[in-house]
C-alpha cells in the first residue's frame, strides 16, 4: 500500500473530497507515509535544516548541526526540543471575561475565576501555534517530548547520527527565570 506524493499533497491541502478521504481512512495504512510526509514538508519550508519530526501545523524538530531544535516554518527558532517550546513563544492569556468573550461570547464564555485560555504565538510570524485551556494556576503543558532516537533506530530502521537522551529540560528554563527574580 502506497500513495503518490501528489495524492498526499492533495490530502494535506484539503483538496480531496470526503469520499476519497474516507477511502484512504478505510484502507490499510501505507508504510512509507512518514518518509513522503517529511519530503513534502521539507520541500515547502524556506530553510535547509533537515526535518526530523513535524510536531504541529508550523513547528518542526530539525537537525541543526549537532543540535535538535524546534523551528517554525517562518524560520524562527524556539530552542532545544527537550525544552517545552511554549516557553520560548509569545503568550497572550485570556483570563478576564472581556478577553474570553472575544472568542467565546455570552453563554459560551467559561468562568475566568476558574479557566484561562492561553494562546501561544510564534515571535517570528505571529502564527497561533497552540491554544491551551486549563484551570487557573496550572503549569504550562509540555504536550509532547519524543524519543527521537528510538523512533529512528527501532521503528524506522534509520538511526540518527548521534544519540540524545529524551530528558525533559524545561526546568532549566524556569530555574533560570527564578534566578533572575530580584
Amino acid at each position, binding site marked *: 500500500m502506497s500513495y503518490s506524493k501528489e495524492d498526499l499533497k492533495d490530502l494535506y491541502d484539503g483538496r480531496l473530497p470526503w469520499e476519497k478521504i474516507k477511502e484512504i481512512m478505510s484502507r490499510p495504512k501505507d508504510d512509507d507515509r512518514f518518509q513522503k510526509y517529511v519530503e513534502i514538508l521539507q520541500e515547502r519550508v524556506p530553510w535547509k535544516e533537515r526535518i526530523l519530526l513535524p510536531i504541529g*501545523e508550523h513547528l518542526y524538530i530539525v537537525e541543526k548541526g549537532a543540535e535538535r531544535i524546534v523551528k517554525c516554518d517562518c524560520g524562527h527558532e524556539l530552542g532545544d526540543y527537550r525544552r517545552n517550546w511554549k516557553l520560548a513563544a509569545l503568550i497572550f492569556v485570556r483570563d478576564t471575561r472581556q478577553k474570553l468573550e472575544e472568542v467565546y461570547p455570552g453563554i459560551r464564555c467559561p468562568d475566568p475565576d476558574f479557566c484561562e485560555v492561553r494562546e501561544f504565538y510564534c515571535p517570528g510570524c505571529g502564527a497561533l501555534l497552540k491554544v491551551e485551556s486549563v484551570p487557573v494556576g496550572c503549569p504550562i503543558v509540555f504536550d*509532547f517530548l519524543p524519543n527521537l532516537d528510538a523512533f529512528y533506530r527501532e521503528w524506522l530502521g534509520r538511526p540518527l547520527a548521534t544519540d540524545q537522551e529524551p530528558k525533559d529540560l524545561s526546568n532549566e528554563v524556569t530555574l533560570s527565570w527564578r534566578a533572575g527574580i530580584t
Partner: protein
Amino acid sequence: MSKQKKGIGDRGQTLKRMLEENRRLLKETGCYAGLTQPQLLRQDPVKAELFHSRMMSSLIAGRETCKMVSGSPYVREVAELCMGIYTPEGDSVLQSTGIQVHVRLMGDNITWMIDNNYEEDVGINDGDLFLANDPVIAGIHAADLYDILPVFWEGELVAWVCTVIMEMDVGAVSPGCMPTTAVERGADGIKFCCEKVGSGDRLRRDFEIKIEMSLDMSDLFLLDRKGAVAANIRVREELKHIIGDFGLDYFKAGIKELIEEERRSQVARIKQRTVPGRYKDVVPFEIYMAETQTSWLPGKRDMIRLIPVRMDILPEGRLVLDFDGVGEWGWHPFNPTPKGLYGALSISVVQTLSYDGRANLGSLLPCEIKTPPVDSLFNPSLIKKLATGNPWPAAIDVFSLWVGMLGTAFYMRGFREEVFNKISSSGWQLAGFDQFGVKRPMMAGTTGNFGCGASGVCDGVDTGAWIATMETDTGNWEVWQLFIPEIYMSRMLEPYSVGCGRYRSGLSMPTMDMLHRVTVGIGSGAIGCAHDRIIPNLGLFGGYPGGKRNTFLVRYHDFKDTVSKRLPLIHEIGDPRTFMDYPYAEVRRLNHMPPTIEVKDKDLLIADNGSPGGLGDPIERDPALQKADLDNGLTNLDITRRMYCIEASYDEKAKEWRIDQKATSQLREARRRERLARGVPVEKWWQQARQRIQEKRLDPLLVEMYRSSMKLSEGFTREYRDFWGLPGDFTF
C-alpha cells in the same frame, strides 16, 4: 489423599486453574496464552477468515435478535447494546457492532466469577443465566446490565457469550438511572453481582418477581433480559455449529490465536502510526453538589479535581497511561474504578486503532493503565460504600482528551486523516408521572448530539461524535416523543458551539425538549461530562476548543398566552450574547449537574453542549470552506469576521455569500500584527502568575484542587514547584 474435583474446563481443569495458567503464560512470555509462535490460523488463512466471520456474523445476528425481542427505546432506538464471545477464562475474542466500552468489562465480570470460585460455590451449568451490573466488580455505571451465558460442548465449558444493555430504570433514587443525587451505594438501585438468575435457558420466576416488585419499569427491564437471553442462546447455538464444522480443537486453539494475533496487530499499528515518547495534558473534573439534596451530608459540597494525563508510547510498541497527580475521591457517584477506566480506554482504542472488526482483548493488551494512587478519584478504597451510578464522566472526559493525544501522534506520522478528538455531554434526566399517569424515571437517549473534533484534512463531522453510540443523535425522535412526555422543539446545529481552527470542529445540536402532559416532574442532570466552568483543552495545533456547554430550564411566564399571541417560542440558542434576555420566560442557567429541581408541564429543558476542538490557526482557514458554511447556515458573519478574519457579504441576487479576498488578507495581516503586539514573552507572564500562586490568590476550589493533588503525589508536587520556581516547602 483427597481426590481433586474434576473441573468444567479444558481436560477436566477448573476454570480457576485455566485462568491462573493463562495469566502466568502472559506474564512470562508477553504473548497471550504463551502463544509465542501462533500457527493454526496462519496455516490456512481462508479457513481462519471463515472461522472469524462466522462467529462475527453470529454476534451481529444475535444483536439484531435482541433488538427485535426487546422493547425498550434504549435497545431499539439507540441500540445501546453490544455482544461478545469470551474464552473460558473470560478473555474477549470478538465483539459485535455496538457500544465498544465493554470489550474487557464483560470479561472482567466473568473472571470475577472464576476468581470467586463460582464453579464450586455457585455452580456453572449449561443453560445457566448470570446477571451483573456492579461497577465495583466491572462496569462503567450501574445502568449497564451484563447478561452472561456459558457455552458447553459435551460437558466442557468452551466459551461464554455476553450481552450488555443500558437500562433506563434500575431502581435508583430519583431521578433516572444515573442519579446525580446518589452518594451511598444503596442509592444506585438494584445490584446484581454476577447473580445466577436463571437456569435451563429460562429466567427464574422469583427473579422476575423481584424485578416486578423493585422497578417502576419492570416490563421493559424484563423484556430486555429476554432479548439478551434470546440473543445469547442464538450465538451459543451458532457456536456449537461452528465447533461441529471446525472441530473442538480448532475452536479452542483458534479463539486464543485470534487474541494473540490482534495483540500483535495492535503493536504493529502503534509502531506504524504513532511516535514514541511522552505525551501530557490535564483534565479538570468539576462536581457541584453543595445544593444537592443528599441524605449523606458529606456529599453536600462542591469540588474540583485535577486529572493529569500522561501517556508514554514505548519503543516496544506499548502505551502506558499514568494518572499520577489525580486528586482525591469524594462522596459522589462519579468516582471511576480502575476497571472502569479500561472501559473508556476500550471504546477509544476501538475507534482509533482497532477499527477493523477484530477488536478483542488483544487490542488492549499493549495498553497499560498504571494503577492510580489509592484514595484518588480513580481508586477510592471505600468504593464499596459509594454510589457508583455514574463513574462515566471523568473517565470519558479523560479519554476524549486521550483521543486527541493519539491524534497528535497520527499527525506527526503523516496520518493526518486519522486526527480527531471528541467531547462528552450532559443533559437532563427526569422522574415523575408521565403522559400515561405512570410514575417512572425518564431519560431520552438524545444527549450525545455534539460535533467531532476537526480532522487533520477536513472539518469535523457535525453531530455524530458520540463515540459510544452514534444513534444517540440520529435515533428516531418520534419514538422518543411517544415514550417520554416531551415535544422536541427543534433539531438545529448551533454555530457558536464550534471549536474554531483552520479546520473547524463539527457543530453541536442542542436538545430543546418541552415537557408535555407531565405531572409531578423532577429533573436533574444526565451527566456524561465532568466539565462546566472550565472548557476542556481540546484545541489542536492552534485551533480553539469549542465554547462552554450549558444547561437551561426555561419556564414561560404564561405559555398559553405566549402561543395565543403568536409570540416566538425558544427553538434555538441564536446569539449567545442575548439568549438569556428572552422576554417571555424565566431562563434559568444551570451547571452540568443541576440538583434535583421541580419541573413543570411546558417547561423547556435545554442541553446545549459544546464542541471539541478546531485544528490549526483560524486565520489560515480556507475562505472557500467558510463560504460553504455561510451558504449552508452553519456559521454567520460575526464568527467569520471575528474568528477567521474573513470579510464576506451576502449577494441577494445570487442568494449566496461572496468572499472579499483583499479585505480578508488585510484583516489577517492586521490580526498577526495584533498578536505580535499583545503577546508577551512567557517569562514575563510567568513572573506575574507565579506571584499570584505564591500568594494563593486563586478561587478556594482551585486551591483545594491543587492541595488534593499534592497530597497524593510527590511527583506532581515536585513538578508543580519546579515549574513555578516555588520553594521546596511550598504547599497550598
